[in-house]
């Protein structure tokens, strides 16, 4: 990344990472570097990294292939699942095409049943993720599943994944997490330094950059640039500060962030998968058992597929204070039961314990609801 570029260009560079990553992915395949596709943050990325593979998120973010998916999957299903399945089925996603294996987890009902069908046209491995973080048995199951994934990868790619390599990967991923945390931590600045749209561009784009070390340097350099500009007086106007939580966003669902920021709000924190949810906690580098360390970190991710799900509330609690949040928007993808049901407890927590306004919005991968989203967001911001 050239430091001579203007900040907006750098943000766009991250936004274009997904598109440009296609070529990078092809080049990697030509060098015979394995690619592991994922659909969830629960996949311990350190394992593929330890064998020199690259990891790519396959969660689709457009409605282009939904009609194709609906030939087989029910219409009343989460758009992320339908669209991801559709992209796989139609071979329209180069990342899916280049992935040597897809690793899924038993997270939500929609995904785990979808993998059964996906396995018919792609090598799929599904990790048995417990639906609770509360018991010793759940932890043991997850730790064993991580070890099982390691053996599976070793066998499939005919490599040895040593503990030393895993440790190196843990250190590298922790560096990346720290860099990303420092970057999205810019959201704490008040008046703001950057828009939520730009924060999301970087968080999303960074998942399509395959050279982890270069990626870390780019993020650190970008944060430095923003901070320097801020100290030199480049500050944004103060606006009501919004925290976005709930289902994964990215691609077409950026319409939510746009609707918030077009109507007078400023997104300062993303709690979603693409945001802090999976980045916030590091893997313990001092834990003697690497599998224990990985299991601990990944099982603690506060997704609504966990019951109960106290870690989501704990992260919200902390970030609402640290980011001086004025209001919370909970994004629910249509037919996502776990997040939809959890809105009740999140609303109660935000309204009663944090005494700030909360609104949940249900949306899908179409652009049909942009008018309604604008009205809702404008009304929400007027309320603050």
């Amino acid at each position, binding site marked *: 990344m050239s430091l001579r570029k203007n900040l907006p260009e750098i943000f766009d560079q991250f936004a274009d990472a997904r598109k440009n990553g296609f070529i990078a992915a092809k080049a990697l395949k030509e060098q015979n570097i394995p690619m592991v596709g994922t659909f969830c943050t629960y996949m311990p990325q350190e394992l593929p990294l330890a064998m020199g593979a690259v990891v790519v998120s396959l969660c689709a973010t457009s409605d282009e292939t939904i009609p194709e998916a609906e030939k087989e999957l029910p219409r009343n299903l989460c758009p992320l699942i339908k669209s991801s399945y559709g992209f796989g089925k139609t071979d329209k996603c180069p990342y899916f095409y280049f992935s040597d294996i897809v690793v899924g987890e038993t997270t939500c009902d929609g995904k785990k049943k979808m993998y059964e069908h996906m396995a018919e046209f792609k090598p799929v491995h599904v990790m048995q993720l417990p639906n609770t973080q509360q018991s010793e048995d759940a932890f043991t199951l997850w730790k064993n599943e991580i070890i099982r994934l390691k053996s599976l990868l070793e066998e499939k790619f005919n490599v040895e994944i040593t503990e030393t390599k895993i440790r190196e990967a843990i250190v590298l991923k922790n560096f990346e997490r720290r860099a990303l945390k420092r970057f999205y931590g810019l959201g704490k600045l008040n008046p703001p330094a950057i828009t939520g749209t730009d924060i999301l561009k970087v968080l999303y784009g960074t998942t399509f950059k395959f050279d982890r070390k270069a990626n870390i340097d780019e993020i650190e350099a970008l944060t430095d640039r923003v901070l320097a500009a801020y100290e030199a007086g480049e500050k944004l106007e103060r606006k009501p500060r919004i925290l976005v939580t709930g289902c994964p966003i990215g691609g077409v669902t950026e319409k939510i962030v746009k609707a918030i920021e077009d109507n007078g709000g400023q997104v300062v924190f993303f709690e979603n998968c693409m945001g802090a949810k999976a980045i916030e906690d590091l893997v313990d580098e001092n834990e003697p058992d690497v599998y224990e360390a990985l299991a601990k970190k990944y099982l603690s991710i506060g997704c609504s597929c966990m019951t109960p799900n106290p870690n989501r509330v704990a992260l919200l609690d902390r970030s609402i204070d640290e980011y001086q949040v004025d209001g919370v928007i909970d994004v629910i993808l249509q037919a996502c039961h776990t997040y939809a049901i959890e809105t009740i407890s999140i609303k109660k927590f935000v*309204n009663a314990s944090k005494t700030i306004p909360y609104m949940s919005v249900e949306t899908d991968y179409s652009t049909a609801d942009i008018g309604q989203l604008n*009205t809702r967001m404008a009304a929400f911001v007027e309320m603050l």
Partner: protein
Amino acid sequence: MKIMGIDSGSTTTKGVIFNGTHVTHTLIVPTSYNPKSTMENLQLALHKLSGDDEHIPVYTTGYGRDLLSSKKQSITEITCHGAGAAFLNADTTTVLDIGGQDSKVIQLDVKGNVIDFLMNDKCAAGTGRFIEVMMRTLHKDLLELDDLVTSHTPVKISSMCAVFAESEVISLLAKGIDPGDIALGVLDSICERSAHFVKRLNRDAPIFFSGGLAQSKSIKISLEKHLGVPVHTHEKAQLVGAIGAAVIGYRKLSASRL
């Protein structure tokens, strides 16, 4: 100082002039295929009514709120309905507005500020459109609703979807069921649905009911039955959005002139 408030809804466009204490002039016209020109015509007509030579600042709300180029500012219908309801009835803490193509519940604090809201804008069931379609199927005018249902027994309408409910009404008519019984059934069905909607936000406080349907006594009675709390309305309840826009506009302009 005078302020004009215009609420550009999907079915009707409403306008009021507010002088800081009273709503002095009001106008309701059907929204045409061109909501922008409907707003412009309404603005002209209201201005004429007021007999003023000077320009009256306009604040807009509703679906077409951003269309009027001469507006001072646009404000969402949520905020305006809240402010309008609090102006018409100072004790209001919960507003139910059943509009032509959406419905909303708004919760207010004691000062009349919006603290929470819900909107249904995905489905015609639970909106004014539902009753409009059913009345058309019954070949009756919406204004006759109260006369039509008085001393009738409601038939159960089981379809929640406006399209299916229309077929249901047609088959009930074919069976020779009295149109008054059917109309009361339709009305009961939308009120039951609206009551569930209100209960998602409200904890047993009286309701201020606004929107075009608030003109109907029978809808108010049915809502009270389903909600189990008093339902208040106002002769100007259809104008509540426009009144809210004018009241907020008045506050904003007064504050900026201090």
